[in-house]
């Protein structure tokens, strides 16, 4: 694969579709969460309104350069992640910029936004931001482990690091999905998935009750808008990776919408059922439940 200029409008189109879809899906998931809690929940267009409001707000406040750049880093991470991974298998339009790198790029680019946002939040000088970041990073180290092991198992299984080739290998009926050919790896990966979706029981770093909203505490107006945009895009970018690696990818948009929604739903379901873990509890959880499965998956592959 190589670059052609036409890929830029194609990529923007992908981005637009994912964004619009993301807004609605986020809203629906929130609504479902609310219903599970016996509340009515937000209106369907509420997320749009929130975003529009925040983009429209003007601020005279900045805590410094990194603070200013933090949201930029964060959203670059989300957008970049979507664009480095092919969205629709077999579609020329939605291959995005996957030619720049393979699965390893996607795995490591996840941290780009995290790091930038953490730096921005850090410069705000708010201790709650720093507390949230330390909690988040601590939990991430353990949550990543089963996922990475599963990814390794899958790359070994298909003998490639190219996402496109991994998806290609899963074509031909749902029984050829990794979910069925390598279920242990998928379970391990899904345990890791729960840990990175910022939902209960692994949302202590956001800790809405005791440390307002974690790392983004000090962010407001357009800063917050950028971060909110990322909150919409980033989970989908991640789920796309999961979908491609474990659930056969998607060959068209409807399948894409369905699979992404269902995968998202897993974390939402767990989230409404279980109360929150403390950080050290979640680290232990991942090491006790996720790690052995991950190890098993690389040993038997």
């Amino acid at each position, binding site marked *: 694969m190589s670059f052609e200029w036409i890929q830029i409008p194609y990529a923007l189109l992908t981005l637009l579709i994912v964004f619009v879809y993301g807004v609605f899906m986020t809203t629906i998931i929130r609504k479902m969460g609310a219903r599970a809690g016996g509340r009515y929940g937000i209106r369907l267009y509420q997320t749009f309104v929130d975003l529009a409001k925040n983009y429209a707000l003007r601020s005279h406040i*900045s805590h410094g350069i990194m603070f200013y750049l933090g949201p930029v880093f964060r959203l*670059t991470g989300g957008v970049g992640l979507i664009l480095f991974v092919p969205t629709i298998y077999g579609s020329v339009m939605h291959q995005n910029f996957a*030619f720049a790198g*393979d699965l390893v790029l996607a795995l490591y680019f996840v941290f780009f936004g995290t790091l930038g946002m953490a730096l921005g939040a*850090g410069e705000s000088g*708010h201790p709650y931001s720093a507390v949230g970041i330390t909690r988040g990073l601590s939990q991430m*180290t353990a949550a990543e482990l089963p996922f990475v092991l599963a990814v390794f198992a899958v*790359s070994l299984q298909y003998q490639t690091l190219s996402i496109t080739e991994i998806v290609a290998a899963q074509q031909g009926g749902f029984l050829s999905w990794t979910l069925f050919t390598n279920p242990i790896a998928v379970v391990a990966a899904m345990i890791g998935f729960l840990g990175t979706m910022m939902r209960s029981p692994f949302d202590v770093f956001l800790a809405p009750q005791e440390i307002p909203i974690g790392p983004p505490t000090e962010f407001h107006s357009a800063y917050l808008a950028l971060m909110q945009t990322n909150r919409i895009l980033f989970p989908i970018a991640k789920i796309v990776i999961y979908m491609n690696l474990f659930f056969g990818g998607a060959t068209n948009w409807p399948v894409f919408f369905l699979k992404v929604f269902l995968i998202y739903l897993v974390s939402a379901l767990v989230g409404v059922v279980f109360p929150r873990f403390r950080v050290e509890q979640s680290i232990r959880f991942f090491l006790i439940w996720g790690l052995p499965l991950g190890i098993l998956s690389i*040993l038997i592959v």
Partner: protein
Amino acid sequence: MVSAIFIIVVGLGAAFALGLLKDSWRNGAFALTMAALAVMSWISISWLGALASGAAQPTDILTAGVQPPFAINLRVGLAEAGLLSVITLTGLLSALYLRDALMQQGRRSMAVLLIAIMALSGIVLTRDIFNLFVFFELMVISTGGLVLLSDDERAIGAGFKYLVVTQVISILLLVGIIFTYHAQGSLNIDDFAAQPLAAKGAGLAFFLLLMALVLELKPFPANGWALDIYESAHPGFSAIFSAASGTAAVYAADKVLATGGAEWLPLATFIGLFTFLASNILALRQDNDRRLLGYSSVAQIGLVLAVIGQRDILGDQFLYIAGGILIAHAVAKAGLFWISGVITRRELTAWTVLRLNPPLVVAFATFLAMLIGLPPFPGFYAKWELAHHLVAEGRVAVLVLILIGALIEAGYLFRWFGLAIKREAPVARPKYAPGKVLVIYAAALLGWYAGYRWGALSQYDNLLQAMPLMVALGFLLIEGLPARIKNVIAIAALCVWFWLSYGSFDPLQMIFGVIFMIGGAVIFLASFHETGRRLGFYPPAMLMYAGLAMLIVAESSFAFFAAWEVLTIGSYFLILRGKKSEPHALSYLMFSLGGAFAILLGFALAAGGTAPLAIADLAQVTGAVAPWVFVLLAIGFMTKTAAIGLHIWLPGAHAEAEADVSPMVSGVLLKAGLYGMFLLLMTMGRQHLFGVDLTYVLLWIGALSALLGNLMAIFQEDAKRLLAYSSIGQMGYALFGLAMMNHLGWLMALMFVINHYVYKSLLFLSVGGVAKRTGTRDMYRMGGLIKLMPLSFIAVLIGIITMSGVPPLSGFGGRWIFYNAIMTADARLPMVLVFLSGPIAFLYLFRLIHTIFLGQLKDEHRQLKDAPFWILLPQMIYVAFLLGFAVLPGMALRRVDAYIGEHFTEQGLSWEGLTITSEFGYWSPVQIMIVIGTIFTLLFLLLLALNHKAQWVKQFNIVYAAERPFRPETTHFAWNFFAPYRRALGFLLAPLVTRFWGAITNALHETAEFTRKLYTGNGQTYAVHVLVFVVVLYLVAGGIS
């Protein structure tokens, strides 16, 4: 050529002549004494020169004009001439040194001194055992007299104890001589050789003879009497007692042993080794400098005795080896005793006063290096040859014990050096008698000269003619220049050396060469910050770089080992410069020397005794010995890379070093170990021990180092310690890559070599610069420095992004190669640890940048400026390099990739256009950079359009429910940053390794403490020791037939 008998004639004659002089003619008497000693020295040296050059042949001197055994014959061969030179020169220099004491005591004391030297010369010369007895008696009596030169009241008691015990020894000797005469019918040593004594059933005779001579060597534990002399006698005399008496006595033992046949040698070996080990252990607890030197003397003579015990296998190298150790000992010990004479107090810390006189520090270091056998001194060559001979004959156990003893010796000697360099020194510079100081310098120069001679005599290139080493030593001569001029010269030296030699490098050497030399030069830019003369910085720094330079061009095991020791010793002195680095430098040295000894043993095993071994020939080592060679070399190299278990020296050593030294010892020095590992794995490949693939073990060690190094890093409050622990983790990654034993694994290791040099040097410099400004390295005491130190912040930011492996910077390249490498690796379990340690690196990296630069600025830091220009300059060079290397990693890696490809069958990477492709995946650094850059810019412009009016608000303008923070200390979240992590995984950090090594050192110290109770100070007890020693040995030797 003047007959050697004139040594005795002149000594004796001058002593008698002194008796004829008036008591008041002290100057005349002293002049006569000096003249006599000078003549004796001249005769000895002229014989040595003539015999060494072949101008003269070994000569027998017949006394009374009659053939032996009817008259006494004396012999001068090469060994005799060498030892006579040592004895008479020690006498001459000591007499000069003792001038005040001798003048005070008058001509009688001078006569006694002359008699002592004459007697010692006689012991060396004579071939008749009764004559030997006579000379011993003369020596004993004169020693008894000379001990009294001391001002120390205890000297009288010590002299008396000495006389009591030596009389016991004399009785043994005399009885032995009588028995021998009865058995042999001759007293001439040469007659014994014809008919070995033991063969004639006269074992007891020989045993007694031997025991008497061995007891003169002060073997452990029958040596309390001698130690009291070392401690209380005048140091000028102690020098003679240690250097000359020891030399003569050991030669007497050698003469007799040579006639006894091979069956007596194990006994000598046993006594020698036992003494060497025990005395070194006992010396650990000494805080009196002279008593410590006494223990060390006893140990060294024990070592020589052990070498004599190997004379059956050393062949014509015997003189070279035993002589090398003996001469190194004699020069060094005499020098140290002489230095102790200019120091007023006796505790080891009193030696701090030397710092006020830097040349004396150089002399001190010279003597210590000689004693331990570091290059380029004679002991080094001797140790090397000895190791090879011992291994060739399967006496590995002897070698191991010798190396353990040498390591312990290095421990207490360099602890002493550390005390002298780091403890508080007096302010006023004492006035030294110029004569005494000159004697010390003369000894130091003699030491260097001996090193040169031994190098010339060796079958290898003389180390003192090696260009890098000469340049490094040249810095000793220009120490008086201002630091900045020396810095220019140092940078030029590194660049010129690289320019001269890079043409012959293969790609691997090229990468290491660039890091060692050009990389070293870049770090030196930071040294421009230092003003004044910066004494003691450039010689060790250049010594380290000289070692590194010699290391990459080394083709033989000898050259490699010599380079390794040179860089070790240079870096030790360099690390020791840090304010609080005394214990850490020592710990570094102990691990490094231990590792060096493992390498020595490994090379010797590999060579099978036939040195020199070309490094490339390691590939030819096969059979049962091969895995052991592998293990030993790997352990040696892993002490430098601080693999887990051997890592405890690193955090302190790297953290406490000076701001520009930390990057040198971290960014540059650690790579020496990796270079060694590269060579080892390239030549020896996979080895199996007890059915276990050793590279698999390395894989686990690498993975564990990566995990535990990173884990320990996240809990450090000290920024430099954090970086130091991180180095352990990073070296673990590199080791892991190497141990995978596949093409991409090695490429990944090289990627880490390059990246680690750059970002660790960068980060150490940034943190060093910040610490210089803030006056602390504790991160929680800092905070919010981004606005005051923006350039340092950028440097750290780029550094941590690279290190964490986040795209688009070059750290990602390392991770990408890693993932491709593990796809073909055989072992999967260790990967789990590496996967876990990757994200953990984020924790400490974020902590590093957050707690220093972000968060709340402290009140006391509000006026700070960015780090000094010269410390920032190399950082900016690194930043530029990292950005460039991120886009074009191929410029460094392509050729290496092809080069590594020669060692593996599987294919490497393909570098077509801008995309790098492997068997499994692809990676296009330029495109990644463009995509990320474009998205980032667009979003930034968007935010700028929306929020262009934003302005910086005040520090405490933050959303804080119902209260207003006002103290940065309570608002800056920094201390115990990852508390939850400690609760979850803290159990992994139990300091097991520290406890393990601590237990070993404690056990040694406790043994020393317990054993020293033997020395009660009672002369009768000491006499009993001697007798018990003889009886026990008699029993141990199994009832001599």
